[in-house]
C-alpha cells in the first residue's frame, strides 16, 4: 500500500461548481423564471436570471384592442394584483380624457386595492412559510386569506379577477348591507393577522430560516432600483401611495411602514405591518364613504379618445407599478407600456444570492433534479515540486496536466 502511494506523483483535487437551475417550474412562487445558481458545496458563488417564459405579448395586444377592452386585458397581466393594473391603466385614460372620477368612486377603488394588498401579502407570507418548511402555517394562512377573497367578492363581484374599475368610476356600488358584511369580515381577519404576525416574530423555525438571510443595505436598494416592501424593509421609505397620493390616498390617513434590518424576516414583517395599515385604511373607508354616484353609465362614455399621453403610477402590493399610455386619437391606444415591480425586484436582486446557502435561495429545490452541467476547473498538485496549478477540464482530458 505504502509503495503504491509513493509511486503517485500527482493528486487531482476537483472543486466542483454545480449549476443548479431554480425553476422555471415553480421556483418558490408560481412564476416561470429561471434562476441559475452556481454552487460550490453549499454556497452560492454566482447566480443568473433568465426570464421570458411567460411572454404573452400583452403590450402589443393592447394596441390592437380598443381602449375599453384594454381595461380587462390589463387586469389580466397579473392575477394577484389585477385591480392595481386596471386602476393604473384607467387613470391614464382619465388623464387623456381629462376626466375626474367622483369621490365615492375614488374611495371604492382604494378599498378594492387595499383588499388586494391584504390578500396578496397574505399569499406571499404563506408561501414564505411553506418554503421554509412550515406547511401548517401555509394552510392556516391560506384558509384565513379566503375571508379576504370573500370581501373582495362582495365589493367587486369576483374573488380574484375584479374587473371593477371603469373610466369615470367603478362598476358596482356598495350598500349598507354589504358594508356591514365587510366590517364583520375585517373584525374576523384582524386577530388572525396579528396571530400570524406573532408566529413570524417568535417561531424558532421561521427565525432560523429568515433572520440575517438575504440582507440588503439601503445603498444596494437604491443603486439597484428595488421597489415596494423590499425597499421599505431596508429603510428606504418609497411608497407611491404617499408620493403620488392618487385616488383617495390624499384623504385617507395611513403611514409608510419601514424597517431597518433588510433581511428576509424584515421583509415579512413589513408586509405584516402593511396589512395592519391596510386594514385600518379599509375600516376608515367603510366608515367615511362619501355619498354620491360612483358607477358611470358605460353606454355614455366616449368611444373615441383625443390625442394625448399619460404616465401613471400605482403602489401595487409588490411595489411601484407604472403605465404609459399614448393615444393618437381614435379607438385604439398607440402604445401601452407596462413596468411591473416584480421584474425590477427579481432581476436586480440576482447578484445578492451570492454568499448564501443554496437552501436560502428563496426557492424549493427539492422537487427538481439538480443538473450538474459542468465542472469548470480542477487543481493539479505536483507533489514532487509542491506546485499547485489550475487547468481546465479539457486540458486534463488531453493529458496536458
Amino acid at each position: 500500500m505504502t509503495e503504491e502511494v509513493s509511486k503517485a506523483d500527482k493528486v487531482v483535487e476537483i472543486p466542483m461548481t454545480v449549476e443548479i437551475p431554480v425553476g422555471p417550474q415553480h421556483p418558490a412562487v408560481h412564476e416561470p423564471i429561471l434562476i441559475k445558481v452556481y454552487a460550490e458545496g453549499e454556497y452560492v458563488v454566482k447566480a443568473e436570471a433568465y426570464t421570458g417564459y411567460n411572454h404573452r405579448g400583452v403590450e402589443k395586444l393592447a394596441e390592437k384592442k380598443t381602449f375599453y377592452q384594454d381595461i380587462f386585458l390589463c387586469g389580466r397581466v397579473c392575477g394577484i394584483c389585477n385591480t392595481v393594473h386596471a386602476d393604473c391603466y384607467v387613470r391614464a385614460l382619465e388623464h387623456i380624457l381629462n376626466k375626474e372620477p367622483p369621490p365615492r368612486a375614488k374611495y371604492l377603488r382604494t378599498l378594492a386595492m387595499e383588499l388586494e394588498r391584504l390578500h396578496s401579502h397574505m399569499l406571499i407570507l404563506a408561501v414564505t412559510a411553506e418554503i421554509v418548511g412550515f406547511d401548517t402555517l401555509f394552510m392556516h394562512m391560506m384558509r384565513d386569506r379566503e375571508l379576504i377573497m370573500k370581501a373582495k367578492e362582495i365589493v367587486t363581484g369576483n374573488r380574484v379577477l375584479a374587473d371593477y374599475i371603469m373610466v369615470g368610476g367603478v362598476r358596482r356600488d356598495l350598500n349598507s348591507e354589504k358594508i356591514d358584511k365587510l366590517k364583520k369580515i375585517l373584525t374576523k381577519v384582524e386577530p388572525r393577522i396579528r396571530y400570524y404576525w406573532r408566529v413570524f416574530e417568535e417561531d424558532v423555525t421561521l427565525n432560523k430560516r429568515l433572520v440575517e438571510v438575504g440582507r440588503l443595505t439601503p445603498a444596494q436598494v437604491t443603486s439597484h432600483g428595488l421597489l415596494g416592501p423590499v425597499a421599505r424593509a431596508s429603510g428606504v421609505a418609497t411608497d407611491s401611495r404617499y408620493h403620488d397620493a392618487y385616488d383617495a390616498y390624499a384623504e385617507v390617513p395611513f403611514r409608510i411602514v419601514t424597517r431597518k434590518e433588510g433581511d428576509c424576516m424584515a421583509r415579512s414583517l413589513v408586509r405584516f405591518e402593511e396589512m395592519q395599515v391596510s386594514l385600518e385604511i379599509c375600516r376608515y373607508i367603510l366608515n367615511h364613504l362619501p355619498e354620491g354616484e360612483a358607477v358611470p353609465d358605460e353606454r355614455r362614455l366616449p368611444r373615441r379618445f383625443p390625442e394625448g399621453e399619460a404616465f401613471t403610477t400605482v403602489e401595487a402590493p409588490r411595489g411601484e407599478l407604472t403605465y404609459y399610455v399614448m393615444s393618437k386619437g381614435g379607438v385604439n391606444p398607440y402604445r401601452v407600456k407596462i413596468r411591473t415591480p416584480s421584474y425590477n425586484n427579481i432581476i436586480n436582486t440576482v447578484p445578492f444570492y451570492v454568499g448564501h446557502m443554496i437552501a436560502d435561495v428563496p426557492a424549493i429545490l427539492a422537487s427538481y433534479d439538480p443538473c450538474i452541467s459542468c465542472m469548470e476547473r480542477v487543481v493539479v498538485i505536483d507533489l514532487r515540486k509542491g506546485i499547485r496549478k489550475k487547468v481546465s477540464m479539457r486540458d486534463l482530458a488531453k493529458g496536458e496536466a
Partner: protein
Amino acid sequence: MAKVPLLKDVLKLIFSKPATIQYPREETPVEPDARGRQYADLSKCIGCSLCMIECPPKAIRMEKIPEGYEVPKRNARKIYPVVDYFKCIYCYRCVTVCPTKAYVVTNEYRLASDAPVNSRELSLSTLKKASQEPSQGEGEG
C-alpha cells in the same frame, strides 16, 4: 424565545369542521350578485351587436334567430347574441354596454362540461314560440 401556542390552534382545528369545501358534492357559497353566467333576454334585445363589438375576448357571436319564434319588431335584423361560455371572461362588459339592458345576470358558476357551452338555448327560451301562421306573416313583413 417564547413559543407561540400553535398547538392550541391545531387541536381546535382537529375537532372542527374542515375548511375545505368538497366541491361537486357540496356547493361553494357565492354572493347573490357574483358575476356568473349571463345571457340575452331576446324580448328586449334589438340585435344592435354592440355587445359583440365591445366583448374583450370576442366570446359573443351574432346569430340569426331560427324560424318558429315570435321576434319583437324592434329586432329588425332578427339576430341575437350567443355567448361562448368557454371564451367568456365574465367581465360583464356586454351587460353594461347593452342599450336596452337586455342581459339577464345570474351567479351560476358551474359551467364545466365536455360539450361546448353557450347561451343559445337560454336566450331562445326567453322568446315565445310562434304558432305557424303569424310566424309566416312576420317573415313576409
